[in-house]
């Protein structure tokens, strides 16, 4: 009996256990139940409280029953092998100084003593910085920009000091149209010309480790800052002084252009681009015109009615030197003066006339005018324009002979001519009419100027 009972008990027990292993369940949902997704993610924050670090983990699926779940980290710890995380609502959290910060750690989800899922993580590769704070925007009128500044607690930390910041700004009416700027410092300048004038803007900033050993995730956004850009009038407000100066400059330039156009032909062009002068016309203009009926011309045809005496040569006379030593002829009497004048007039004037040139003497050269023969004399009163008009020569030549007459009566000192040339004797010969006058009163010394007669040449007689 005993043996029989034992056998039945064993059979029943075996039947029970076999039925359990074959999948029979009291609860029919277990067969179709999918395994829970215990995947998770973690991030670390270094020196979050003094020298303490933190590790925060959370299940990816919030619907998972996490009643008895635990998180454990092992490896890369100081003094201990493993640490358990504390549950805080839906997250698992630990704050400790015992992170070695070198090497990998293993983080496991445990249910009781059994590890459900594990991940190998490096604490320094899942760093999430603290969000920046104290964000401000200041408008700089001189620079025409907006200076964005903010602060971060990582500037005072010893491990995660170097961060990359992301500044995002947008016009408030344009939702989801954010502009991003990356920078490693805590200051940023936004140019005014790149922003809409008179608009309201919103700006915020976040941080991430720079990737040089410490890596991780973006921090949370900082609190937003709102600012308004100043209004601008059209193209912008101009300085009134600058405005006045620009208007005056415009009108000045316009006036200058008008005056240039008006005065170009008469005033400006002759100065800027003068015409080449015709020497004949120029001399005609330069020469003083005689008072009456005097024809000043270089046209030989104008002298057709004049008798021209050709001058063959000029001879120097020694007795001129003796003249200066006091042998002045006595002053002529009136009758002799009249004779002289008449003699002059009685000659074949105007067939003969003297071609006199202003001449100079030596320092002590005497001066002597003899009647009957026109010689080189001091011709102070020689008219500047020796008119070839022979009809009125009488008057002019009387002036000449007055000079001649006066010269012997003067003292030696007065006789000295102003020109330092040698005395000369002009030999006159009648020249057929129509012949141009050829005179070349060259002296032994070089003449410093060109005489009037040198403009025309003696044609072959």
């Amino acid at each position, binding site marked *: 009996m005993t043996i029989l009972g034992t056998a039945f008990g064993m059979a029943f027990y075996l039947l029970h256990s076999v039925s359990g292993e074959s999948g029979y369940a009291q609860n029919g949902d277990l067969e179709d139940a999918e395994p829970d997704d215990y995947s998770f993610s973690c991030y670390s924050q270094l020196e979050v409280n003094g020298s303490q670090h933190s590790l925060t983990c959370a299940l990816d699926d919030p619907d998972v029953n996490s009643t008895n779940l635990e998180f454990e980290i092992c490896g890369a710890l100081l003094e201990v092998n493993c640490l358990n995380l504390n549950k805080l609502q839906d997250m698992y959290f630990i704050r400790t100084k015992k992170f*070695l*910060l*070198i090497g990998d750690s293993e983080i496991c989800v445990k249910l009781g003593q059994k590890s459900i899922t594990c991940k190998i993580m490096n604490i*320094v590769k899942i760093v999430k910085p603290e969000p920046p704070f104290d964000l401000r925007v200041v408008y700089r009128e001189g620079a025409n920009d907006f200076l964005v500044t903010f602060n971060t607690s990582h500037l005072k930390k*010893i*491990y995660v000091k170097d961060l990359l910041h992301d500044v995002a700004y947008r016009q408030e009416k344009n939702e989801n149209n954010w502009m991003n700027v990356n920078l490693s410092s805590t200051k940023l300048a936004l140019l005014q010309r790149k922003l809409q004038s008179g608009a309201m803007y919103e700006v915020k900033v976040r941080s991430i480790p720079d990737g040089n050993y410490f890596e991780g995730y973006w921090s949370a956004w900082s609190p937003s800052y709102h600012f308004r850009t100043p209004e601008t009038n059209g193209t912008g407000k101009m300085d009134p002084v600058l405005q006045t100066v620009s208007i005056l400059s415009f009108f000045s330039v316009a006036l200058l252009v008008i005056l240039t156009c008006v005065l170009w032909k008469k005033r400006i062009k002759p100065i800027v681009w003068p015409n080449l002068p015709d020497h004949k016309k120029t001399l005609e203009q330069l020469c003083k015109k005689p008072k009456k009926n005097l024809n000043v011309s270089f046209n030989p045809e104008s002298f057709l009615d004049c008798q021209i005496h050709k001058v063959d040569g000029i001879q120097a006379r020694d007795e001129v030197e003796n003249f200066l030593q006091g042998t002045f002829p006595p002053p002529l009497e009136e009758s002799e003066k009249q004779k002289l004048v008449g003699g002059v007039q009685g000659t074949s004037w105007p067939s003969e006339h003297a071609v006199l040139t202003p001449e100079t003497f030596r320092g002590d050269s005497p001066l002597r005018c003899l009647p009957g023969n026109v010689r080189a004399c001091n011709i102070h009163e020689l008219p500047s324009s020796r008119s070839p008009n022979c009809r009125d020569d009488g008057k002019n030549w009387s002036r000449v002979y007055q000079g001649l007459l006066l010269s012997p009566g003067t003292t030696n000192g007065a006789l000295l001519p102003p020109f330092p040339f040698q005395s000369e004797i002009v030999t006159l010969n009648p020249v057929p009419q129509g012949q141009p006058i050829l005179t070349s009163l060259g002296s032994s010394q070089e003449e410093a100027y060109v005489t009037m007669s040198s403009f025309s040449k003696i044609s072959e007689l």
Partner: protein
Amino acid sequence: MITLAYSYLMLDLVSFRYIFGIPPLILVLLPAASSDCDIEGRKGNEYEKVLMISINRLDNVIEIGSNCPTNESNFLKKHSCDDNKEAMFLYRAARKLKQFLKMNISEDFNLHLLIVSEGTLKLLNCTGKVKERKAPSQGEGQPIKNLEENKLLKEQKKWNDLCFLRRLLEKMKTCWNKILRGAKDP
């Protein structure tokens, strides 16, 4: 018969020698041939971003000035950062650092001491075990004359230990720089 017995005896002696003679010899020679360390932190990031920070913090905590004795300690006389022995030196130095935890200067001090020690060992990844000689105790068996002398002795010992620690940290920094320089200029 006697010859056979003699031959068996000789064979046993030879076997005995090989069985009981050579293995001890191998065991004696084994420590000198082992201790293979593979330096993982040759790039310098771990040293620059973690270890150097903790070494500098320890230097700031020590603050003993320049009144340390000039004579070198026995440890540094015995171990140095010679060529091809850098890893071994760092390994021994890292293990030596743990002895200073007993000083209990401060929590921050202990923290950084551990970071330097454990971090160095982590980066070296030495496979062989090196037996450290136990530091000879100073005067443990001697009778204490009075409290003041004891206090003075403790102070002196602390001073000497800090000087030795500072010197040791300097040697470790120098050795790490030598390793990193060698990694940059092969």
